[in-house]
């Protein structure tokens, strides 16, 4: 009798770990497939677009129509979004937790803190302002001292003044400081004067198992990949992508047509141009440091944080 009891006790003890499994099998509670948002298209402007769509759904009509109807009214709260039709100036130290929508231009004075903001016209952020979630406008001007941990997107142009911090910025034209002009004069140093292939001209991709240095004025017709650090010399031109397995330094006056990716950090030394209006390109690394005026057509994404500073003496 005791032996049977002991046997059952042992069996019961062995079955204890199976009890939750049996319960979950007989009465399933966690059976949903891992969700994948099929409509998600990876567009950087999606946040602003979704916010406008949410607002339109709450208003029951297109925003442009609403703006016309309520042009004379002041700001009002709709579906958790402050809506204003006319141009607005936010006073110093304004703090907005809710989202803002403005049908015209909006200017903030110094040290404003914004959650999310969508502007159909110009958005000018005053000195020391902060955007925590997102800001979107046709054109955005960022004054010195701003902090941009949120996503900053513009249909046309974003101009940032140093110093400022950012994470994700996207526009057809992102100007860090007064941007260099891609004039023929600027191109002179990237193309051999006699038009013949020289030691600085490479046709095809350039790859290195370790670190890689591209000489000043070199012209690369393909992409560049270095598993270690990569240094692009001043005034060099790269027609494809630049990928670094560690840190990437882009010399003064360099031009890169394709995406720029580094596994650790990217440093722009100034007067650099990435992408073109017709062929935008992405710049992405955990850390991005911009040390001089730079023009980027496309997007910059520094997940761990990016800074735009002009070192003293430049």
């Amino acid at each position, binding site marked *: 009798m005791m032996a049977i009891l002991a046997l059952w006790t042992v069996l019961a003890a062995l079955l204890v*770990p*199976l009890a*939750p*499994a049996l*319960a*979950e*099998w007989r009465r*399933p*509670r*966690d*059976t*949903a*497939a*891992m969700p*994948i*948002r*099929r*409509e*998600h*298209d*990876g*567009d*950087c402007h999606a946040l602003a677009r979704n916010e406008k769509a949410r607002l339109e759904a709450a208003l029951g009509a297109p925003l442009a129509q609403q703006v016309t109807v309520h042009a004379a009214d002041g700001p009002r709260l709709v579906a958790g979004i402050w809506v204003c039709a006319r141009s607005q100036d936010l006073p110093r130290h304004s703090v907005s937790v809710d989202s803002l929508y403005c049908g015209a231009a909006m200017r903030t004075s110094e040290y404003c803190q914004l959650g999310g903001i969508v502007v159909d016209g110009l958005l000018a952020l005053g000195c020391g302002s902060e955007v925590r979630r997102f800001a979107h406008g046709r054109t955005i001007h960022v004054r010195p001292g701003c902090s941009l941990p949120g996503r900053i997107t513009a249909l046309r142009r974003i101009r940032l003044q140093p110093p400022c911090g950012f994470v994700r910025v*996207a526009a057809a034209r992102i100007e860090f400081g007064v941007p260099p002009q891609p004039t023929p004069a600027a191109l002179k140093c990237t193309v051999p004067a006699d038009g013949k292939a020289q030691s600085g001209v490479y046709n095809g*991709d350039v*790859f290195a198992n370790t670190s890689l240095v591209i000489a000043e004025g070199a012209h690369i017709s*393909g*992409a*560049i*990949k270095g598993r270690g650090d990569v240094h692009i010399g001043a005034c060099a031109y790269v027609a*494809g*992508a630049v*990928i670094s397995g560690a840190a990437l330094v882009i010399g003064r006056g360099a031009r890169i*047509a*394709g*995406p720029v*990716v580094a*596994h650790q950090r990217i440093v722009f030394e100034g007067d650099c141009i990435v*992408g073109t209006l017709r*062929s*935008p*390109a*992405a710049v*992405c690394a955990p850390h991005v440091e911009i040390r001089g005026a730079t023009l980027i057509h*496309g*997007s910059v*994404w520094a*997940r761990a944080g990016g800074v735009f500073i002009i070192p003293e003496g430049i």
Partner: protein
Amino acid sequence: MRQMTIAASFWLVSFPAHAASLAPLRLALEGVLMLISALVALYALRHYLFTVNRLFAEQRHPYVDIDCATWPALTVLVAAHNEEAVIGDALQALLEADYPADRLSIMPVNDRSTDRTAAIVDDLAARHPGRIIPYHRHCGPPGKAAALRDAMERITTPVLLVFDADYLPARSLLKQLTAPFFDPEVGAVMGRVVPINVERNLLTRLLDLERAGGYQVDQQARMNLGLVPQYGGTVGGVRRAALIAIGGWHADVLAEDTDVTFRLLLAGWKTVYQNRCECHEEVPETWPVRVRQIRRWAMGHNQALWRHGRRLLAAKQLDMLVRLDGLLLLGTFAMAPLLLLGWCLALVLYYAGDGTGAAVFAGQLALVAFGTFGNFAAFFEIAAAVYLDGSRGRLKLLPFNALGFLVSTVTVSLATIGQVWAALRGRRSLVWDKTTRFRKAG
């Protein structure tokens, strides 16, 4: 093999008086057992390392942030053999993809279908002229690899992606999968496969756990550590120049994905795993279908081990850890029969009077194998994956994976033994066994 082992066991038990004269044999068997134990321990260590890396180390997603670029011309191949129930949805999803229409060609590879697949494809192609370019294959050797090889002759784009007909890609997936090809070193890319029919029954729920462990932890850890992420044949792509450089798809393989992964690796190309490129797939809903699927995978993997194992060992241009990981990846399915052999040896030695070493090894084998090889994704990897995915309740089903583990072990062992036996007899014909679909049309 098993019958021989059992016979040997009975012989040893029946004739203990002969034990002394059998010392050399026992020593040899113990040596084999120790070797198997060492291999199992090596796999266990590898899976522990992967899990710890995935949970605590820095994660590498170097190309996932490339959201704008001049995207290269792209061909999406959709392999289809009697896929009338699913092909329409897959093509429709691809048509809705966020990829420049003038740079995207969708090529359904209709491989000798006998159902309405061809009609559905042609209908969609007529409604979207220039975007869907069907390829109807009426002859030639069967199988996905052979079909892809023939389709390759019609492709001129620098990048090609491959999907199975039951996959429903999200709008952004094509860009995400193409982004790594901006890196001139990348030869292939692989996304994450996520089961969609999880709720169907216990099997689908167990397969959901297994897939999570395999992709969320195993593949991502290999990506983090710079080892050998595997191109999985679907939700992935290959650089055309790289594929041509290694001789294209081989038609005589059962696992063209594993074959391409290792040929690319040996030729110096990288395979990239993109954990955030997720795509739904349908997993088998019945055990016979599941068994056939594992059987095909095992035979294909073993074939790749046979073809590339020695070359990988000799590939001095590759890092030592990469070679080791590649070998362990190739040997995953070969371990199942070794595991069974180890269990049998432990029993034989135990009953033959070796009650110390054999018993210890038997216990170690049972425990470590349970934790390491559970359905090819270690159980602790599954637990970590479920945690990372943010699910909780489904983790309770983990003990049931022992069932799937046993089924897999026996199936893989039988498939491997049959494969070896066929090779010894000079019969090397490989039969393609298509996985049954369960989704209803419309």
